[in-house]
Each structure stands twice: as structure tokens, then as C-alpha cells.
């Protein structure tokens, strides 16, 4: 009986482990297929949502007490509707989470501003986005433009860098935990 039990338990563990590896493999394969794949943006969408949980936005960042928490996408929407699905029903500090597609100079009311990699040449314009706006980008020059968090692909995985100076400038307090998982903190 004990031997049998061990074998059974071992088999169960093996199956579970196998399942875990299958998922991980699929993930890797899909990332490896190219940065444009929808899977990459699924991850990025999830990351965007997760940022709301590690960063505190001051009350002044919102236009009204009942104003929603807005994640704005500037430039071409690579998320398709992944982000919309992600935020459905989600709240941040009791504020409804919404996704908006915006144009330059129309970024008012955004708490997170995702800048697509095609949107370039801001030349520090992002710095002027004002207090309480977390700018998230995905280009090498993003920090030069004054961005706070920049997505990078490393080892076929989505990582991000943090520009703490920029974060301080916009008055956002980034959790140490967030900094810990960042690839690089400037």
C-alpha cells in the first residue's frame, strides 16, 4: 500500500509537472514566434493591469472623486481587444478601470499612458504629461523621451525597465517590489 501510494502520488506529480511544462513551452513558443504576436501584448496588457497594483496614484491625479482609472493607448493598438478584456470588471482603489485610445495632446484624464513603439520623437514631450500619469513605452528611446516604464524583450520574455527619476517627477510612488522585478532601474 505505501509503495502503491507513493507511485500514485509520484504519477500525479509527474502529470502536474508535465502540464506545467506544456503551458510554459506553449508560452515560450508563442513569444519566440515574434514580438508582434498577440501573446506578447496579452502579457503586456496583464503587466499594465499589474502596475496599478504596485503603484500608488495620488488623489490629485484624478479630475473627480468618481472619475474612472483610465489606461490610455497612444498610437496603433497592438493589444487588439486583449486589454479591454483584461480590465473588464476590474477596479483600482474603487475606481472603475477603463481603456481609452488617445491621440497626442489628448491625453488628459489618463493614469497610465501606453505609448506604442511607432510613436517616437517625443523629445521629452512625455515629461510634460503632467503629474500622476504613468507613461509606459516599448522603445529604446523611451526613457530619453521622459518615460517612466519601458517594456523590453529579454530572452524571449517580456521585461520592463524603470526610470525612477521620471517617476519621481510625475509624483508616483513605485513599490519596491515593482522595482525588484524590474530588469533595470535608472
Amino acid at each position: 500500500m505505501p509503495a502503491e501510494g507513493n507511485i500514485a502520488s509520484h504519477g500525479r506529480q509527474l502529470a502536474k509537472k508535465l502540464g506545467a511544462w506544456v503551458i510554459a513551452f506553449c508560452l515560450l513558443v508563442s513569444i519566440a514566434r515574434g514580438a508582434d504576436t498577440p501573446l506578447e501584448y496579452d502579457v503586456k496588457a496583464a503587466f499594465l493591469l499589474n502596475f496599478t497594483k504596485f503603484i500608488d496614484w495620488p488623489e490629485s491625479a484624478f479630475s473627480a472623486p468618481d472619475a474612472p482609472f483610465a489606461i490610455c493607448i497612444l498610437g496603433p493598438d497592438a493589444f487588439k481587444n486583449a486589454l479591454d478584456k483584461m480590465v473588464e470588471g476590474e477596479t483600482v482603489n474603487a475606481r472603475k478601470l477603463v481603456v481609452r485610445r488617445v491621440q497626442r495632446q489628448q491625453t488628459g484624464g489618463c493614469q497610465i499612458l501606453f505609448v506604442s513603439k511607432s510613436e517616437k520623437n517625443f523629445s521629452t514631450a512625455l515629461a510634460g504629461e503632467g503629474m500622476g500619469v504613468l507613461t509606459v513605452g516599448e522603445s529604446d528611446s523611451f526613457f530619453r523621451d521622459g518615460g517612466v516604464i519601458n517594456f523590453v524583450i529579454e530572452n524571449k520574455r517580456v521585461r520592463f525597465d524603470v526610470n525612477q527619476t521620471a517617476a519621481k517627477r510625475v509624483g508616483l510612488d513605485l513599490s519596491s517590489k515593482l522595482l525588484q522585478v524590474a530588469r533595470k532601474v535608472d
Partner: protein
Amino acid sequence: MPNLRDMPIKRKLMVIILVTTTAALLLAGIGILVFDSVFFKAQLQNDLRAQAQIIADNSTAAVSFEDEKSATEMLGALRERPHIVSACISRTDGTILASYVRPGAPADCPAASPTGNDSVFAADGLVVTRPIVLKDRRIGTMVLLYDLGEIDERIKLFSGAVLAVMVVSSLLAFLLSSSLREVIATPISQLVRATKSVSETGDYSIRAQKLSGDELGLLVDRFNEMLAGVQSRDNDLKKALLDREAAIREVDRERQRFRFMAESLPQKIFTAKPNGDVDYFNQQWLEFTGLTFEQIKDWGWTQFIHPDDLEENLRTWKQAIATGEPFRFEHRFRRADGKFRWHLSHVHSMRDADGNISMWIGSNTDIHEQKEKEEDLQRANDDLQQFAYSASHDLQEPIRNVAVYSELVAKRYHGVLDADGQQFLGFLSEGGRRLATLISDLLAYTKAGMVEVNPAPVDSAAVLQHSLASLAEAIRESDAAVTYDALPEVYMSEAHLQQVFQNLISNALKYRNQDQPRIHISAIRNGSAWRFSVQDNGIGIDSQYKERIFGVFKRLHNTHKYSGTGIGLAICQRVVKRYGGQIWVESEPGAGATFFFTIPQYAQRVRAAADESSAG
């Protein structure tokens, strides 16, 4: 292992101390161990839960952002705890984000608890499962497996510590107790030593040393008191023993004195136990019989008694043993050369303070020569007696003729004889009559000397009645009152007893005074003999004549006043002595007289006539 009960107290104390100490320590150790393992487990659970929670909390970002490296680093901190076998951080869908495996351990993730938040002791250790929660949402699970080696180690460590403490404390207890137990053991050893030396030497003056004031000290005091008691009793006993030895020596000396005396006498001496077993014969016996003491002791002496004497001898001896009366006996002993010699034995009993016979002592004198002379004399006497009897008998006939014819002459020739002739004839007939009486009495006297050898018993009352019948005329004449008590049977010839009665009663009638004669006959037991008495109220006898009256022809009075030949009492004495008895008189002049005579209860060998020949 020897029984604890038999161990010396010193070791017993040590064992008790060690066992007690060890038991107490063992119990304390087990208590601590159990207490510790229970509390340690609880503490360990809390501790691990907290640690897992910290990792879970810290790994929220890593899980959120799929940062496997950061998560792995976080788990890597668990390396500091070598008993953590493995730990995993998994996502909500069950996929593993990061894992930690102790080097050498199997690379499995422990199975997370279905509740996702608890700690369970499983077969391979403690499994702690904590949820990873971010903003009230569960984003993953933290699981760790903790082997229980630490608990075992801890138990081992504690056991080792308890053992070490036990060893050290036992050693300490041993060292301490070895000096402490002296306090108890030394006084006991002292006491034991004292008792041992007392029992070995028997010296009761030894005293145990008192070393403490406790119960042991009390015991020593009591022991010493007891010894003192024993000592004084021992001294008393020794003294008593010395006294007893002295008494025994004294008895021994007495016995030696008696032996010396007995051995130095020419007589044969013996002593016997109360039951008649002879336990001593002096040397004279052994020389005479030529036998050893062993042969003749107890009743072995009967072998040298003449067969004709033995039956009588044994009867006399046994009767003496029964009554305790001394006796004398004549019998013949066989000498070493086979010849029998006459001996006279005197046997006396010795009585103790309570009056019981303690021993018999006998002396035996050789009377053989004397006996032979007596027999010669007896023969001569018998001849003489035969002659006297024949003479008296033959004399009766002629004297009767003298009497008859002188009376005939007096009748027929009364007118022929003158006055002188008649007076002479009167003298002649008177003399003849007296001579006839005299001869008749002499005949009776000689008859008294002839007795039967083995007389049959006779009723003395019947004999007395015959006597009184013979004396009826005289009694009637004197108007006498004769009375008598119950009288016994005696072993003697009826004729002899009648002679005695008749003579004594006729004497009493004869020597009366003016009053009516009163005569009383009685008999009482006196030792082994009957003592008869004949009492009268006559004239009595002056004490100076008390012996003389028993002689032949001894008369105190002239024939005119009291008739008689003076031979009656001589006959009585002759008869009584023949039967081994005695005769005597008690009297006061004018106050009557009482004649006594004794007859042995059982027939005695008839005494030799020579015995009283001197009296004749």
C-alpha cells in the same frame, strides 16, 4: 545482581540514591523532551508559516510580472534553513513559477494543500502552504516541505543532554552519597562489628560506640543496655555453675567417702535404687562370688542365692520395696568355689526430704560358722528337749500311781492310820499332786519348743474363743468380764497361740484383787507385725520384776496365795520368740497389767531354738 535486601547497607544506600536520582532525572528528561517536541512542533509550524508568508508576500510582484528569477532568488533565501527540502511558487493555474530544492533532494514540488492555506505533518515532513495574495486576489501559491530531521535532531540533542546530565548528576550523587552514607552506614557497621565480636569472643563487657543521636544511637544504647543485662546474667550463671560444680564435687567427695567406707568394711555392702535395682556392690562381693559387677547388678545377684532361699528372699525383698520397711534376712550365697555360705543381711531404706525412698543400703555378714555352731547347738537342744519331753511323759505314769494310791490309802485306811500317819499321807498326796502339775507344765513347756515349719494362717479370734472355753470354769468362779476386739489371722500353730492366750488370761484371772476382774484382748498393726495385748485390772507388777517373770519357775508369790508352777509366762515367751515376735509387760503395781506380744504379719522362718536358749 544480588538481592537488594541482602546487600550491605552502605551499598544499599548508594543504590537507593542512584536509582532515585536517575529515576528523577529520567522523568524530568522525558518530560522536557515531550514538552519540547510538542511546543517545538507548534513553534516550528508558526515559524514556517510566517516565513512562507513573508516569501509569499514578497513574491507578489515576481508572480505578477512572471519574474522567475526574482521568485527563485526569493526562494533561495530558504537555503539558510537546511531542513527545508523544497519550496515552490506556483501560479493560480497550478503551473510552477519558481522552485527551490535542497541539494541532493528530489526535484519535486511538494503537493499544495487543497485549502491553499495550512500546514500539515505528512509522511515526508511538514508541508506548509500559503496563498500569494495581491490586492485581495490570489495570484499564486507558496508551498514548502520541511523535513522533521530537526525534531529528531532536537530529540537526539535533548536525549544526549539529559543523558549527560544524568551521568554527571549520578556521578555527583555517588560522590556526595559516598560521604553522606557514612553518616548512616558507619554507626551500623560499628554496631555490627560490636555484635560480631561479642558473639565470637563471648565477652559481654564489650560495648558498641554511639556515633549519633538518632534512632541508630538509640539502638546502640539499647544494645549496650541489653549487653549489660546479658553480662550480669552471664555472671550470675557463671557463679551458679561454679556453685553447682562445688556441690557436685562435694557430692563426689561424699560418694568417694561412702565407697571408701564400703570398700574398707569386712562386710559385703550393696546399694540399690528405690525399685530394687542394685547399683553398687563393694569389692568383697566380687571377691566372694568371683563374678563381675556387670553380671550381678540390678537383679543379677539372684544367681548366687541358694535355690531353697530364693523364693522367700524375693518375696521379702519385694514386700520391702512396696512398704519401704527395713528387714533382715538369713540366706545362703554361693561362693566362687561353688560352696554356699550363710549370711545375715540387713537392708535399710534411705528416705529423702519428701519421705520417698531414695535408695536402699544393705550389709551382709558371713554368719556361716556361727550358723553351724547354732545348728550343732540346736541339735543338742533338740535332743535335750526330746529327752525332757520323754522324761516328763514317762514320769507322768508313776506319779499318777503315787497320787492314786496315796488317795486310796487315805480312803481305805483312814481308821487304821494314826494322826501322824494321816498327816504324812496328806503330805505324800499333796506332793504327788504338785509333782503331777509340775510335770504336766514341763511337758507343755517342751511342747512350746516344737513348732510346725510352715504354719497355715489361723483366725486368732477363733483361737481365743477356744481358750476362753477351756478357762470357762475359772472365769465363772472369779466372775470375770472378758472382752475382745476384732482379731486378725496369723501364721502360727493354733495350739501355740492357744497356749499363749490361755496362760496370759489365766494369769490375769489369778492375780486379781478384790474388784471384779476385767480382761480385754485386742490386736493392732505395728509395722510388719501384729501386736496383741491382754489387759487386766489386777494387782499389777512392780517394774523391777518385768523381766524376771518370763523365766522358768520364776514366781513372785508363794504358792499359798497364788497357786501355779511359774512356768506359764516362760512358755508364752518361748512360743512368741519361736515365731520371731516379742513379749513384754507394762504395769504399775495396783493399776493392773497389760501383756503385749507381737507376731510377724507374714510367717518368718522359724527362729532357732538356740536364740532364746539364753533366756531359758
